[in-house]
């Protein structure tokens, strides 16, 4: 398991390859990248210590639900421009069903449980992004 909160960009291919290279049991790699969309710029704030702990707990929960071989979560903080990647979630499993489900689960929980906050810079000025109810709904559907 690899959990990182950093301002630097990440290398998707290197992160994904690190999860499957040298593990012949990996048959499926699901990955997700969230990007800055339709905005002039974003600044991401986090809660050092708690954020990493929350991400670890989320990945741990995913490993309890599904038979995963490995997972990486990298979330960027600080200023980010349009089309810059914000977050990477990559999950390695033997079969695709588990990899897809766990990757989506981690994103849904990250969105609603990990302490990050987005401030958007637009032509009309800066403002803190409001939490979306749709994200809360997406996370609650896993509570079966």
């Amino acid at each position, binding site marked *: 398991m690899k959990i990182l909160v950093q301002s630097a960009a990440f290398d998707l291919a290197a992160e994904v390859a690190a999860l499957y290279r040298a593990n012949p049991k990996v048959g499926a790699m699901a990955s997700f990248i969230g990007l800055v969309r339709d905005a002039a710029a974003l600044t991401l704030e986090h809660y050092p210590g*708690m954020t990493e702990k929350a991400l670890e707990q989320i990945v741990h929960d995913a490993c309890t639900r599904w038979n995963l071989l490995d997972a990486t979560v990298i979330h960027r903080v600080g200023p980010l421009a349009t089309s810059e990647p914000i*977050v990477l979630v990559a999950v390695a499993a033997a079969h695709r069903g588990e990899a897809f489900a766990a990757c989506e689960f981690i994103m849904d929980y990250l969105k609603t449980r990990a302490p990050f906050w987005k401030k958007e810079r637009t032509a009309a000025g800066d403002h803190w992004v409001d939490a979306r109810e749709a994200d809360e709904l997406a996370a609650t559907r896993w509570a079966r």
Partner: protein
Amino acid sequence: MKLELRYFARLRETFGRSGETLELIPGTVADLLQALRQRGTPWAEELSGERAFRVAVNQDMASPDTVLAEGDEVAIFPPVTGG
């Protein structure tokens, strides 16, 4: 008891500080929030419950009835918006 308070994002800006050390008689998160609201604007408005906020104690999510202890790190922040 002495508490280490931390504020994030919009609340950090609204309160004009990223944290503070606060002396409180033993109690719960609800008691702490009540003490902060008594400071008046902007604390009263932000922590009245009309705008959503979250509380974490020692970096775990907490609820109003979470009991606080000497030296606890208590963070107050808006609903998260990462990802």
